[in-house]
């Protein structure tokens, strides 16, 4: 790969993967929790929560990025809090890029997980309860295993969304090579400078390859999971 890609490009590739993986890791548990609350909970203000969760999907990414910047910059309320309690700053760092990606991907993950939770027959959970299982055991042995296809779909969607995240990232953490310059940002930079077409084309190819690998992996895992939870494959595909 070293012969094919320049050092900047290799750095951007690994950075992109790191950012995407971390954004999925930090958001998967909150996404499951929010999906459970939205799928099963009955409380006043549920539609408000639903709206807030879906906000990044409808807001321009630049707006999300700007909000993050206001909140997490050195003088922002959360930025100050992080600095004073943990002595960390995530503005203009790859962690910030991961956060921006996570926020943007969150509604997609919640949606996929929620759909699969809502598809579970509540009678199965009731049956588990009659067999003596408490809420936690029902969640761990019935609900989540049956929602695995949705969890997987949510994870892949979130990962793919993170790979392509641009607007919120560039607004929040800027375009710093080696720190926050992910593939889309690198592609954007190359496209801005004369003679950068060849590099832009290479980055485009990498993006396509990554997307295909992710899709293939998800299809493979989805099949295995469907078999695991006892759903039969239908048709020849």
């Amino acid at each position: 790969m070293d012969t094919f890609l320049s050092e900047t490009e290799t750095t951007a590739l690994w950075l992109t993967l790191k950012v995407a993986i971390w954004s999925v890791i930090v958001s998967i548990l909150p996404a499951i929790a929010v999906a459970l609350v939205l799928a099963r909970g009955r409380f006043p203000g549920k539609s408000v929560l639903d709206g807030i969760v879906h906000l990044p999907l409808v807001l321009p990414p630049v707006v999300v990025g700007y909000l993050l910047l206001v909140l997490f910059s050195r003088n922002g309320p959360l930025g100050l809090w992080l600095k004073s309690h943990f002595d960390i700053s995530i503005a203009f760092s790859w962690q910030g890029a991961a956060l921006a990606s996570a926020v943007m991907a969150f509604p997609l993950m919640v949606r996929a997980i929620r759909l699969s939770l809502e598809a579970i027959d509540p009678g199965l959970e009731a049956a588990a309860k009659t067999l003596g299982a408490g809420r936690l055991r029902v969640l761990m042995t019935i609900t989540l295993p049956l929602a695995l296809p949705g969890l997987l779909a949510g994870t892949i969607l979130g990962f793919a969304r993170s790979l392509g995240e641009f607007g919120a990232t560039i607004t929040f953490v800027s375009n710093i090579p080696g720190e926050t310059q992910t593939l889309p940002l690198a592609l954007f930079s190359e496209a801005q400078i004369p003679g950068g077409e060849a590099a832009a084309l290479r980055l485009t190819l990498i993006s396509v390859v990554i997307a295909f690998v992710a899709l293939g992996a998800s299809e493979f895992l989805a099949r295995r999971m469907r078999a695991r939870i006892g759903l039969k494959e239908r048709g020849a595909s």
Partner: protein
Amino acid sequence: MIEIRIRKALGAFSLDVDLALPSDGITALFGASGAGKSSILNAVAGLLRPDAGRIALGEGVLFDSDARINMPVQKRHLGVVFQDGRLFPHMTVRQNLLYGARSTRTGVPPTLADVVDLLGLSKLLDRRPCDLSGGERQRVAIGRALLMKPDALLMDEPLAALDGARKAEVLPMLSELRALRRIPILYVSHQMDEVVRLADTLVLIDGGRIAAMDSVEALTSRLDLRHLTGRHEAGSVLRATVTGSDTEWGLTELSVGGAKLFVSTLGLERGTPVRLRIRARDVAIALTPPEDASFLNMLPATVAEIAEADGASLDVSLALSDAPNAPRLWARITRRSADRLGLHLGLPVHALIKTVGIDRHTLAGPHK
């Protein structure tokens, strides 16, 4: 004893029942669809919260609105078998069976081996629910409920989703259940044939209320409950004892409250109790015993009750002796014949029985 005293409003429908059920044997809750029988079962299981009332199993209070007790479903230790089985699709049969198995009750039967043996599950253990037939699924569901070693078994139309053949496969196993462990079984059904075959006590439910409760024999012979117990298959359910066998003619002799009945050989020991079902349309009436008819069974009887005519036919209840609790047979005859014979209460007649249905599988009943 199981105490079920509940009120619950469900939209336009309301449930208002007060029941004290025996803590041994199978009690059937019988009624039309929407009569409220499944709601009663769900309230006992904890899946439906009554508006008010009290549910208690022996000493254990499961629900008491006055004392503000509502034990959570998972603490009630009641085995529930649902109409649709509700097997966990992501687990094997073995994992399903053992899901509720309680390690705290190690000395209490049944073991996995007992259940697998009784329900014929040995070849299915490593399969997934999606690879099972409907009957197999219900057998696993029953096994799963038994293995949690419940204090009572609640069955909500466990056979309703099965066709005739599958039903015939599971039904005998149900009547063997109590051989494993003696716990009360509540059995919801809208099929009289299942009830007659399995139940000891029958509770008739109509429009969210209890219409009657008594032994299956007593209720099926009651005329005023005909609209609930069903008309076409109407008949009497009788307890009998094997009293002898006639090898020359291949017959078994039975005694029904002193009266003798012959049926095709059953191959059962003398003294074995069996349950008979004789449909009203299989019984004819004669004033004197006919000498030249093919009826094998002709029993002297007395007209005890004559039903309101329904079209061309009417049902006549025949007492087989003068005792107050004498077994009764129902005969369905035409109005014209009743008039010609001059039937009236107290008239001595002969009951001519065409067919006797025998249920071998109620042999293990608690009245043994």
